[in-house]
């Protein structure tokens, strides 16, 4: 792969993205309410948050893979090609979108269990992908070579996997095959939605290591969506926390894990116990995320936050930049009382 473009040109820019779902006759629900971030080439961004915060919606929206009831109602997603040309993903026409998908940006979905067509072999499905993305039909040899290479890069044996049907592979093998297929066309951006959730711990480890390796080797930018903070900590340079359809904190991994400045992020980290070491005080977050149909006035986290004041409930706070950095790595939090957020984990039992 040729080296990336100038370091200050993001590969993907999302501005004020709004997504809504139709929920009944004439009613809609805003699932994303103005999301903005820039992703730079070869960087890894983690989107974290509880279920329903909008992270999966965001991931799907980036490739315009929202379900039938969802649609992008505002904002833009700009993808910058290697040659510098910019494309507005939200406005691409079908043909162009089809060609762009997978070759420039690919997505690995949650739960690879059903990601493959049950009546075709893996080899056939890889061939499909290659054939539909080439001007002239590639030769059988070429297809075989490229598919085998992709499978080898995820440490699977091509001879066996290519002639297997999906139901003959285990969960972990399927997940790795899906990753291999995603890298088949050497995309520059890879979106992963909960890539390890459905797997057992040992397979998770394999996949995580694999992803880290592949990132270095193929040099793609990565966005992955997870509720698993440990995973985020391992793989990402940057973390964005989402709540009720908005970005409430963004920063480097160190920022988020050692010095979060939004009470929600802080509580999120505190809710997860480490496997080894001292046992910190565990605190679950009282209450539940608000229903997107009936959002509270002002800061959406206020009902569950002990730092909330009237100012918080008056108007929804914007992201406040705390530590400016280039390449959208600034640490910012959408909280009026960010200075009062002191993140510490009280140890209640020594290891």
């Amino acid at each position, binding site marked *: 792969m040729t080296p990336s473009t100038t370091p200050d040109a993001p590969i993907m820019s999302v501005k004020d993205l709004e997504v809504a779902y139709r929920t009944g006759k004439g009613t809609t629900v805003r699932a994303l309410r103005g999301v903005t971030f820039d992703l730079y080439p070869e960087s890894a961004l983690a989107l974290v948050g509880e279920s329903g915060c909008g992270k999966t919606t965001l991931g799907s929206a980036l490739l315009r893979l929202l379900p039938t009831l969802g649609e992008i109602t505002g904002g833009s997603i700009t993808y910058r090609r290697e040659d510098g040309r910019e494309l507005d993903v939200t406005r691409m026409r079908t043909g162009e979108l089809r060609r*762009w998908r997978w070759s420039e940006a690919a997505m690995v979905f949650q739960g690879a269990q059903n990601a493959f*067509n049950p*009546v075709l072999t893996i080899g056939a499905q890889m061939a499909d992908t290659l054939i539909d993305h080439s001007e002239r039909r590639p030769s059988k040899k070429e297809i075989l070579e490229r598919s085998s290479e992709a499978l080898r890069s995820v440490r699977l044996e091509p001879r066996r996997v290519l002639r297997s*049907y999906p*139901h*003959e592979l*285990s969960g972990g093998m399927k997940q790795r095959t*899906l990753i291999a297929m995603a890298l088949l066309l050497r995309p520059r951006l890879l979106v992963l939605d909960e890539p390890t959730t459905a797997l057992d711990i040992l397979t998770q480890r394999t996949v995580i290591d694999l992803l880290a390796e592949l990132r270095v080797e193929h040099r793609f930018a990565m966005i992955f969506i997870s509720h698993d903070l440990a995973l985020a900590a391992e793989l990402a340079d940057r973390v964005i926390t989402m709540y009720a359809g908005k970005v409430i904190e963004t920063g480097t991994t160190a920022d988020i894990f050692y010095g979060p400045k939004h009470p929600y992020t802080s509580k999120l980290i505190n809710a997860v116990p480490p496997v080894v070491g001292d046992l910190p005080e565990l605190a679950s977050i009282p209450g539940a995320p608000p229903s997107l149909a009936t959002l509270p006035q002002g800061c959406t986290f206020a009902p569950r936050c002990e730092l909330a004041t009237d100012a918080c409930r008056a108007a929804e706070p914007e992201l406040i930049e705390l530590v400016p950095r280039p390449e959208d790595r600034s640490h910012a939090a959408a909280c009026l009382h960010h200075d009062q957020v002191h993140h510490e984990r009280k140890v209640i039992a020594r290891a």
Partner: protein
Amino acid sequence: MSTDVSSPHTSPPATSAAPTRRTSLLHRIANSFILRRLVRSLFVIWVVATGVFLLVRLLPGNPVDVYINQQISLYGKTYDQAAAEAQVYFRFDPSASIVEQYGGYLLGLLRGDLGTSITTPGVTVTEKIAQYLPWTLYSVGLALIISISVGLVLGMIMAYRRGGIIDNLVTVIGSTFHAIPNYLLAILIVVVGAVQLGVIDYARMRGNISPGLEPELSLRFLSDIGYHATLPMLTYILTTAGTWALIMKSSTTQVLGEDYVTVAKARGLKDVRIQSDYVGRNALLPLIAQIATQAGFVVGGAIFVEQTFSYEGVGLLLFESINTRDYPTIQGVLLVVTITVVLANLAADLVNAALDPRIRLGAGGAA
């Protein structure tokens, strides 16, 4: 009612097994599946044959005894005489033990001997059936093919454009026709179409072939039998096409919601490929399973439909035999019809296996 396709359970943990010698293993498994289905079909046929035997011979008030008594009382024959006649018609020996009779019966079946018709003495049941069966197979078979094809296309369109005009139209019309029993539709076609409206030339279209025409491989012959088969086929098609469309629509809708279709779109595959290889092939599978049940249903309806249109297939044969109490023929037709349905089942199963690797190779196995 849905068929029982066992879903793959959680796959066993991945082990790195040595690559299997695929070709020979594949052959063995494929063969064994075919063999298994074949054996099972034969078993079913045997059970039905036995059931028919029991029905005819063992239960009280059974036709053979009735026949014998009838002959004795009406025509004053002796028991031996009546029994001898019965033996010819029903192909059994009343003096032999039940087990021997059963054995004789089975052997006779294997020889293709179904007894002799009472109403047309001298003509064996097998001969009669051989004369009538092809017509039913032709009309029902062709109707099924047309009906499924139409239903398939409509169903996919309906699934892709849910709530559209075709969707609503086909659903309403299809459901209405489904509610009409096929025999009543046949009657309605005659009463309304022919008698009232005069649109359908019943007199010319009835029967299965124009008088005087000999079977031969010519266009004239083929178009003639097609012309005569139109009314029965119309009845079959009208009553089933809507159902096929609805089944295909539901199946396609379900497949469209599957993950692999979304992934296929994400992979930037061409629409045509997704529609045929990813959606179509998978949506088709439940349909094939239904063919067997629907085939049985249509064949059953043939009894009435053929009578209404004077179409000389086994349905008509059965109807007439029932009216004349020609028990050997009734028995023979029941057997033949069931065998046909069993074979149709078998064919559907084999096609299903050919199209669905999960059935071919066993579900949920990580090597």
